[in-house]
Every structure is written in structure tokens, then in C-alpha cells.
């Protein structure tokens, strides 16, 4: 009697675990099936090479490039903002700061990641853009720059926290060897510690990129709604995520080609983040416990 009860419980618990697999299967099924019928109308070649994205206009073009370039532009700005700051924080906390400071500042930095993204969007639009306009006069009220910078601030803790973990995990003896030869902390940090922890730091950067690519609300609010094939950060751009939001807000007929575009855009986004995440898992696994 006791045995059967135990078995039933185990099955129930594993079923809950299976829900997560169903979720993945569901995501892939939904994206693949809807975009499959999209690609019966639009050729994959056009999708990947056409330089215009105008599914909601009369003159329809289905080139993903403008959305990709918008996504990459904002992501690049975000990483350029977050990377130097995040790495500096990580190095400072692991190589310079007193332990007590490190312990109290790390959770404080996590606050940056806890603020809802819609709030960051508001900041980008109403605070950062007007501020930037005061010295970049031809900056539009919607632009890639301000959205990217604010997104960068949001992902600082991702980079700083994971990189710091990687640096902190290095054996003390490595640092002592360097100090013992007369190196400063700066030299020890950047010539020994950062290279030795590079796999962990790279993982943190890749995860931050994946996060930035998938971020929606900041760009939907502050970066604009124009699919623009440009590298100029002052211009308005549309990211993949912002496009999905735009279509979802309007009333597009279910089953129409416009409706299916969001799944084609979605599968592109999914593939990008999936690849990045798995590269990071691979690096993590390959270099794990090098110093054990």
C-alpha cells in the first residue's frame, strides 16, 4: 500500500517536470507551424535578403534585415554601455573591495535587474532622450541610442555578477604569484585574473547579449516603430520584439499573412537566443572546474 502511494507521488512529481518539456515543445511547435505557413507565401530567400519590412502597408515587403539591424544596433549600444561598467565592477569587487562591501553591494546591484522593463522604457523616453538631445541636437524623440543605453544599465548586473563569480572563483595563489613579483592590483587583475576567468566572463557577456536581443518594452517605448536598415544610433529603429508588439496592439486578422509575420519574426528571435544560450552552456561546460 505504502509502495503504490510512493509510486503515484513520484509519477505526479515527474509529470510536473514534464510540463517544462511540453512548454519547450509547445514553443517550437507554435513557432514552426505558424512560420511554416508564412514561408509558403514568402520565400525564405526574400525573408533573409529583402531590405524592407512593410507587412502592414499596401506595398508589402517581408525582409527581416531591417528588424535584425535594429535589434543588433540597440543590442550593440547596450553591450557597449554595460560591458566596461560591468567588468570594472566585477574586477573592483573581486580584486579591490573589502569583503563586507562586496557582500552588501552585490544584492544592491540586483535591484537594477528587478525594475520592470516598462519602467526603463519610460526613463528612456522621458529622461534619457531629452537629456541626450541637449547635446545631440538632431536626435529624434525615438532613437536607438537612448533605448540602448538604458538597456545597458539594466543588464549591468548580469555582466558584473556572473563575471565577478568567475573572478572570485580563481585560486588566491594565482593572484599572490603576481603580487609577489611586484605587480599592482590592476596588472594582476587584467593580466592574470581576467584572462584566467575569461570563459566565465565571456559566458556573462553572451547571456547579456541574449537578454538584450529579447528585451521588448524599452525598445517598444523608446526606439520607435520604423523598420530602418541603419547603423545610425540617432535614428528610430524597430527591433524584432517591437514589431511583435506593434502587430499585437493592432487588430490583425487571425490566420492572415500579417498575423503569421509575428511568428516568423518570433522564430528568428528564438533561434538567435537559443544559439547564444547554448554557446554559453557549451563554454561553461568545457571550461568548468579548470582549477579544481
Amino acid at each position: 500500500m505504502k509502495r503504490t502511494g510512493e509510486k503515484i507521488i513520484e509519477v505526479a512529481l515527474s509529470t510536473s517536470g514534464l510540463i517544462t518539456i511540453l512548454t519547450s515543445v509547445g514553443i517550437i511547435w507554435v513557432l514552426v507551424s505558424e512560420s511554416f505557413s508564412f514561408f509558403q507565401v514568402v520565400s525564405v530567400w526574400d525573408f533573409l535578403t529583402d531590405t524592407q519590412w512593410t507587412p502592414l502597408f499596401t506595398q508589402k515587403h517581408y525582409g527581416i534585415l531591417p528588424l535584425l539591424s535594429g535589434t543588433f544596433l540597440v543590442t550593440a549600444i547596450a553591450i557597449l554601455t554595460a560591458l566596461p561598467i560591468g567588468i570594472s565592477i566585477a574586477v573592483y569587487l573581486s580584486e579591490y573591495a573589502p569583503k563586507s562591501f562586496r557582500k552588501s553591494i552585490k544584492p544592491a546591484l540586483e535591484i537594477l535587474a528587478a525594475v520592470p522593463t516598462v519602467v526603463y522604457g519610460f526613463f528612456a523616453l522621458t529622461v534619457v532622450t531629452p537629456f541626450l538631445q541637449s547635446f545631440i541636437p538632431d536626435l529624434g524623440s525615438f532613437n536607438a541610442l537612448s533605448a540602448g543605453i538604458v538597456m545597458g544599465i539594466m543588464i549591468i548586473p548580469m555582466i558584473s555578477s556572473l563575471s565577478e563569480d568567475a573572478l572570485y572563483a580563481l585560486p588566491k595563489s594565482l593572484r599572490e604569484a603576481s603580487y609577489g613579483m611586484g605587480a599592482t592590483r590592476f596588472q594582476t587583475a587584467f593580466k592574470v585574473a581576467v584572462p584566467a576567468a575569461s570563459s566565465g566572463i565571456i559566458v556573462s557577456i553572451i547571456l547579456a547579449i541574449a537578454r538584450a536581443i529579447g528585451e521588448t518594452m524599452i525598445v517598444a517605448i523608446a526606439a520607435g516603430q520604423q523598420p530602418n536598415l541603419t547603423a545610425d544610433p540617432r535614428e528610430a529603429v524597430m527591433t524584432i520584439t517591437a514589431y511583435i508588439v506593434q502587430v499585437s496592439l493592432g487588430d490583425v486578422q487571425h490566420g492572415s499573412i500579417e498575423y503569421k509575420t509575428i511568428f516568423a519574426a518570433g522564430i528568428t528571435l528564438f533561434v538567435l537566443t537559443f544559439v547564444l544560450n547554448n554557446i554559453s552552456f557549451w563554454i561553461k561546460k568545457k571550461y568548468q572546474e579548470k582549477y579544481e
Partner: protein
Amino acid sequence: MNNTLKNRLIDSGFKYFAIFCTFFGLIVLAIFIIQILIEGVGRIDWGFLTSLPSRRASKAGILTAWTGTAWILGLTALISIPLGVAAGIYLEEYGKKNRLASIIEVNIANLAGVPSIIYGLLGLEIFVRTLNFGGSLLAGAFTLALLILPIIIVATREALKAVPKSLREASFGMGATKWQTIWYQTLPAASGGILTGIILALSRAVGETAPLIVIGALAYVPFVARTPMDEFTVLPMQIFNWVSRPQHGFIVNAAAAIIILLLITFVMNGIAIYLRNKWQKKVNW
């Protein structure tokens, strides 16, 4: 040969730069919040909290938005907590080194990296269309529950892992079954850590906007939801809608609503951190 001096200058220069960096994000956030308070705090009054949305900025309130957020919070918790904790228990206590468990594990790591808007597309097809929930609270709650499931599972596992083996062995030693040991010993001992993870996950759900936009949550809902099948809006949706309007009055409304949203987020995070510290002290047996 005064390289030493140069090296020392670089060293202390970097140190001050890095200290600046450490506080940079927090200072910027503080500036933002002060701006928001200046802009929005005067707008918050009883009327703002108890009014329905309106085309006129000065008359519009957040009643539907915060009740929607409360509904979503409750429903998402009901769905995600049992599933997440159960899956966490399975992986940590039963699934060691079995094939299914390792597949689930890799899968969870991948799910955690899927952008939230993709969950919106999943919810749109499965809950809104296939299961015919429409743009209802239930569809929203299921979507968000799937989104935060990986967080709860991981937190549950971490908390269970922190419970010393001796506790389990003591229970087994007295003839308890595996489930009795988990239910009466391991789970209570890990409850602080699990609760922390649940609260953090729910606070994430409260702040989410993108997946709800995709499943068709509305910005303009002129009534308070009464059943889980009603259409709804939530605070972030309402903020997004107001931010997108050109009139300054709505920006003020957005700022006021943000104050309420941040208050909820920070209180939830604060409780989580408090619980974590309390539990961590206790777990050092």
C-alpha cells in the same frame, strides 16, 4: 625607470573609476526614481486608485489596472507554485542521474533564456486560441506561470540542496518513506529558500508586459474583472499605454502608476531578501 610610479597611478586611477562604475547604475536609477516621484507623486490620490480608465488624463485612474495585477498575481501563483515546487522536488530528490531528469534539466536552462515575448506567442496560440480562453486573465496567468516556472524550479532545487543529508538520513533511519521524509522533514527545512524564489518569480511576473500584450491584454478595460475569464489589464500595460500617448497629462499618470508598480516590486523583492537572509542564517546548522 619609473614605471612603478606609472603603474601605481594607473592602479589607483582604475580603482576610482571602478568605484564610480559600481555606483553609476544605482545613481542613475536613483535619479530616475526621483524624477518619477517629482512628476507623479502629486497625482496619486484616492480618486486615482479607484477610478476607471478615461480618455481624459485628469479623470483616468488605475482601478482596473491594479485589480488586474492582483488577479494575475493570485492566479499565476496558484498555477506556478505547485507545478514549480513539484518539478523541483522531482529533479532534486528523485531524478538524480536518470535520463528524463537530465533532459528536463537542460530544457529548463534553455527555457530560462527564452525571451518573454516568445512565451506570449505560445500563450496566444495555446491558451487564447486552441483552449479558447480568449484574452482573459486565465490565459494571461497561464502564460506568465510558464514564464516563471524555471525560476521557481531552480530556486526549489537550490533550497533542497542546502538541506543537510543528515536530516534525510535521520528520517529514513526511523522507517519513513521517501515522500514522508520530503514532506515532513526536507520540504519544511527548505521552505524559506523556496519561498524566496517564489516571491522573486512572482515579482518578475508582476512587472511583465510583453507576453501580455501579445496574448491580447487590453490597455482600455472599462470594468473591474470579476471572474478569471474576464478581459483584463495590468499596471505595466496601463503604463505602456499612457507612455505611448503624446499628452503630458498621461505622462504624469504613467509616472504615478510607475510609483505604485515600483512600490509593489520593491516590497516583494525586499520581503524576498529578508526571507533569504533569515533562512540562510537558519540553514547554517
